[in-house]
C-alpha cells in the first residue's frame, strides 16, 4: 500500500515535469531527503529511484530547460574541486573498499550541490527548492515529533518512518538538520508565494518547528540540545524585542522541563562530564589521533580512514560506596572509532587541501549571506525585507549546522550541501539583480578600462 501511494506520488510529479522539467529537480531533492525506496516495502525498494531521478533532473535541465540566467560561480568551482580531490583520495585510500562505498553517495551529494544553483535561475525556483526541502524533511520530522510526544523516545530507539541509520534517519544527523532547518521553515511560511494562505502556513510552520524541537529530545542526542541553544542565541540578532524574547524563552524552558522524560534529563546532565563518558572520551581520543594522522598523511587517508585507529585510554567514573565516593579509572581499548565530527572527518579523510576547500566553501557561504543582509538591512520594501530574512535564515541554519558538525560526522551530508546550493543560487540571483542597478567596476577587463579612462 505504502509502495503504491509513493509510486503514484512520484509518477504524478514525473508527469507534471513534462510541462515544467524543473519539477524533476524538485523530485530529486525529495527522493534524496526522504529516500522513499526505504520507506516502502515492496517493488519500490528494488528500483534505483535515486539514480533515475538524478538522471531525469540533469537531462531535464540540459535538454529541455532554458539556460538564461544560469551562472557558474566560485563556490560551485570549489565544490567541483572538492569532488575531484575526493576522487583522488578515494583512489589512494587506506581502506579502498570502505572508501568506494562512501564515494558512491558522496559524489552524488557534491555533484548535485554544484548543479542545483544552475537550475535555480529564477527567484520562484529558489523558493520552490526551499519549500520542497522543508516539506520533505518535514515528513521525517513530523513523524519523529509525534512519536516523541507519545512515547518519549530514546537514544537509538526512536524510529521515524524507517528503521535505518543512514542519511537523515540517523538520530544525531536528524537532530542537527531538524534544528538547522527551522529558520528556513519560518521563512517559507512567512514570505512564500506558493502557499499564500499565511495563517494556515504559519500554523503548519509553528507545529513543524515544535516537532523539530522535539527531535533532539526524542533521539536523546546531546548535539541537538547544543544546536537549539545556538539557534536561540542567533535568533536574538533579528528579534525586535530582545528582552521579551529572552524572557519568553526562559519561561518556555521552565514550563518544558517537567515534561521532559527523565532519561533525557539524565543523559543531558552528562554534557559537562565528558571524562566519565566513553562516547565522549573516544571522541576526544579520535580527534587527537586525527591530528597526528594528518601530520604523517597531509594529503588525507581517503574515506573512512578512521578504520585504522586504535587507542587505549582511561575513563573516569565516580562510584559511591556508603558515604564515600571513589574515583575509578578504567582502561578501555578502542579500534576503528568514527570521527564524530565533520571537521575531523574531512581533515582526516581529505587532508589539508580537502579541508581547506571544504572550509572555504562554508566560510564564503556565511560571508555571502552577510553581504546580502547588509545590503537589505534597512530596506523598507517587501522584496528587500524578504531577501534580508532569507539571507538571515540561511546563515542561521548554516551556523547551527557548523556547530552541530563539531560533534557529528556530517561533512558531506546531502541535505546540508543542498543548503549550500541554495545559498550559491541565492547569492548569484542577488548579484544579477544588483548588476542591473550598477555595473561592477572591473578595470582589469580591457573593455571596461577603456570606458572608464578619462577622455
Amino acid at each position, binding site marked *: 500500500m*505504502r509502495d503504491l*501511494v*509513493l509510486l503514484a*506520488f512520484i509518477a*504524478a*510529479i514525473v508527469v*507534471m515535469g513534462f*510541462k*515544467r522539467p*524543473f*519539477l524533476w529537480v*524538485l523530485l530529486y531533492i*525529495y527522493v534524496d531527503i526522504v529516500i522513499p525506496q526505504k*520507506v516502502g516495502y515492496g517493488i519500490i525498494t528494488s528500483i534505483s529511484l535515486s539514480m533515475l531521478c538524478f538522471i531525469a533532473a540533469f537531462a531535464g535541465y540540459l535538454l529541455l*530547460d*532554458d539556460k*538564461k*540566467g544560469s551562472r557558474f560561480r566560485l563556490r560551485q568551482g570549489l565544490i567541483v574541486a572538492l569532488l575531484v580531490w575526493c576522487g583522488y583520495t578515494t583512489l589512494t585510500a587506506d581502506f579502498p573498499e570502505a572508501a568506494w562505498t562512501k564515494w558512491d553517495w558522496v559524489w552524488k551529494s557534491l555533484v548535485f550541490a554544484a548543479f542545483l544553483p544552475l537550475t535555480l*535561475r*529564477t*527567484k*520562484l*525556483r529558489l523558493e*520552490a527548492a526551499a*519549500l*520542497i526541502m522543508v*516539506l*520533505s524533511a*518535514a*515528513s*521525517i520530522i*513530523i*513523524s519523529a515529533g*509525534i*512519536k516523541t510526544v*507519545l512515547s518519549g523516545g530514546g537514544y537509538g530507539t526512536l524510529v*521515524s*518512518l524507517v528503521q535505518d541509520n543512514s542519511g537523515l534517519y540517523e538520530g544525531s544527523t536528524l537532530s542537527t538538520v531538524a534544528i538547522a532547518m527551522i529558520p528556513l521553515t519560518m521563512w517559507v511560511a512567512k514570505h512564500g508565494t*506558493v*502557499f499564500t494562505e499565511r495563517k494556515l502556513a504559519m500554523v*503548519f510552520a509553528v507545529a513543524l518547528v515544535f516537532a523539530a524541537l522535539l527531535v533532539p529530545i526524542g533521539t536523546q542526542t546531546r548535539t541537538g540540545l547544543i544546536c537549539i541553544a545556538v539557534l536561540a542565541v542567533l535568533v536574538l540578532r533579528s528579534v525586535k524585542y530582545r528582552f521579551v524574547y529572552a524572557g519568553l524563552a526562559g519561561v518556555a524552558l521552565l514550563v518544558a522541563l517537567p515534561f521532559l522524560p527523565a532519561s533525557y534529563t539524565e543523559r543531558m546532565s552528562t554534557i559537562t562530564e565528558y571524562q566519565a563518558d566513553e562516547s565522549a572520551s573516544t571522541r576526544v581520543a579520535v580527534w587527537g589521533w586525527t591530528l597526528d594522522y594528518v601530520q604523517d598523511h597531509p594529503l588525507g587517508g581517503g574515506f573512512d580512514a578512521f578504520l585504522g585507529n586504535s587507542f587505549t585510554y582511561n575513563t573516569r567514573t565516580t562510584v559511591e560506596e556508603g558515604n564515600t565516593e571513589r574515583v575509578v579509572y578504567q582502561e578501555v581499548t578502542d579500534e576503528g572509532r568514527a570521527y564524530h565530527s565533520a571537521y575531523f572527518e574531512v581533515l582526516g579523510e581529505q587532508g589539508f587541501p580537502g579541508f581547506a576547500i571544504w572550509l572555504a566553501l562554508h566560510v564564503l557561504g556565511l560571508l555571502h549571506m552577510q553581504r546580502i543582509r547588509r545590503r537589505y538591512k534597512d530596506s523598507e520594501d517587501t522584496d528587500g525585507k524578504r531577501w534580508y530574512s532569507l539571507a538571515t535564515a540561511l546563515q542561521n541554519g548554516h551556523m547551527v549546522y557548523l556547530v552541530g558538525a563539531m560533534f557529528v560526522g556530517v561533512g558531506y551530508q546531502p541535505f546540508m550541501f543542498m543548503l549550500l546550493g541554495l545559498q550559491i543560487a541565492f547569492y548569484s540571483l542577488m548579484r544579477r539583480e544588483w548588476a542591473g542597478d550598477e555595473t561592477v567596476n572591473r578595470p582589469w577587463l580591457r573593455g571596461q578600462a577603456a570606458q572608464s579612462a578619462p577622455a
Partner: protein
Amino acid sequence: MIDYFSIALTHGLILLACWRLLAREDIDREGAAQEKPKRPWLKQESAEDA
C-alpha cells in the same frame, strides 16, 4: 498510523505545491507576469468575469 499521517500530510502538500508551480510563468522566466488561473467555479471570480 503516525507515519501514514506524516506521509499523507507532507506528500499532499508537495503535490499541491507542484500543481501550483505548473501554473506560474515566473518559474521559468524571471519577472513574467503572473497569470492567474481562471477559477470560475469560485463565486467571487465568476462575478468578476461577468
